[in-house]
């Protein structure tokens, strides 16, 4: 095996390319065709992210509620279920979405399903943990007052812990949706289509102007989610 000395690992024309990439940031390709393709790619990336978040919610909400342990009256059962489910959630989220993506591409081929699952599974693990924590952090006094009306643990959850946790959870969900958009863009580098894929193609062709068009589309997407989140939060708080 040849050893690589520091000087040799550098791309000799790197500085020039860097200058070119930087300067084209100010001259993105704004032709109709490029914008149209970037818009379609942005939509696709958003859909991956939304589908991934939907799966994450399907995993995270029930498992998070179970992992909070509030539905179990028997302390032994509660302890067993909480430990088992928290462990399972930890497994889901300790594997990075890119690793999940590689696994699913192996199993399913280059299909959007692979990308969506790669986002949904680790994010489900993260959401489950956050939901469990928000539920167990709810202040006790309103919950005691509900129990005093004769409410069952499930009714206390529906009228107490969940509404109390909702504003925080909604903010967090929007933040996670932003993360999912970035992850979806990154995953499309592995061939799943979307903004990352457009950026890869443009860079391969040394077409920096076009790459910047897609990067700006990504920025607009994230900013749009931020605005939406602010709107929803204003209504909740």
């Amino acid at each position: 095996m040849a050893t690589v000395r520091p000087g040799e690992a550098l791309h000799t024309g790197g500085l020039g390319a860097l200058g070119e990439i930087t300067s084209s940031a100010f001259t993105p390709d704004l032709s109709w065709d490029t914008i149209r393709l970037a818009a379609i790619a942005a939509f696709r990336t958003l859909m991956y992210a939304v589908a991934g978040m939907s799966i994450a919610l399907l995993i995270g909400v029930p498992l998070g509620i179970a992992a909070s342990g509030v539905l179990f009256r028997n302390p032994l059962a509660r302890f067993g279920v909480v430990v088992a489910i928290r462990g399972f959630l930890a497994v889901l989220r300790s594997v990075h979405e890119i690793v999940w993506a590689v696994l699913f591409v192996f199993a399913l081929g280059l299909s959007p399903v692979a990308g969506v699952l790669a986002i949904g599974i680790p994010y489900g693990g993260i959401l489950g943990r956050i939901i469990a924590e928000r539920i167990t952090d709810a202040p006790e006094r309103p919950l005691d007052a509900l129990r005093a009306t004769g409410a069952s643990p499930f009714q206390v959850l529906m009228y107490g812990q969940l509404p109390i946790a909702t504003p925080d959870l909604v903010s967090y969900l929007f933040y996670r949706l932003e993360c999912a958009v970035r992850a979806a863009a990154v995953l499309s580098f592995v061939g799943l289509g979307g903004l990352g894929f457009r950026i890869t193609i443009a860079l391969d062709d040394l077409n920096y102007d076009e790459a910047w068009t897609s990067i700006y589309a990504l920025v607009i997407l994230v900013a749009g989610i931020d605005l939406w989140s602010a709107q929803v939060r204003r209504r909740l708080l």
Partner: protein
Amino acid sequence: MTDTPSSEIAACSLVDVDYRYGDTIALRCVSLRVAPGESVALIGPSGAGKTTLLRVIAGLFQPSAGAVEVMGRSLAGLRPGRELAGLVGMMQQQLDLVLQLAVKHNVQAGYLGRWGTLRSLAALAFPIESTGARNAIRRVGLEDRIATRVGRLSGGEQQRVALARLLVQDPDLVLADEPVSALDPALADDLLALLRDLVSDRPGERPGESMAPRALIASVHQPELALRHFDRIIAMRSGQIAFDKPADDVTEKDLDLVYSLVARAPTPEPAAAGQ
């Protein structure tokens, strides 16, 4: 307090109740009997045992000695839950409401002991309002805030929400621990009047149905408010009942005795002074 005819069930009766935690004796040999329809104010300096007494009556604390009965039933055998919720309800402080939920949902929570899981879910998800909850909200004067989140209401309005929830829960005995301590004097006056009126006025679920009148026991910090709004005054001092008499018979001297800072010879009047 002499024995009342046994034909009438007491809303609440305590016989020689002690409550200790650690070395502290919070209640010592407390006996009292409250009839349905009576409204009783607990007064006394801080630390006299008013809150402890209310919590023992509510079944939240187990007495160390003595017997507690609500509507003729011993609380010792009842688990907290729907059965207890129909017998005794504690008016909650504003801190005990769910600020993120609308007024109607906080009030409907009073039904949770009687509602099944599906019914309580449906009431959250759909804008259905039970007539009972709507009536209770109207009676506390919050009709126009029915869909407002409780966190956006003022402290006085939140206390009214707590009161409406209690009306919906509809227990035979209503307890209230310092229900007006957080309110300014004018609001406190209004709320106590409302509390007393609503507790004593108990329409049946259906027209023509008559229900046993509710009894009310509230701890009240200011004796003037207690005298103005309640039929009977029970004064606590050092975990014992200092006096127990109709509000009309309470004298300036009685109050001085209870609130004086200098501890006098502990001469709690015998319980017989009550009647």
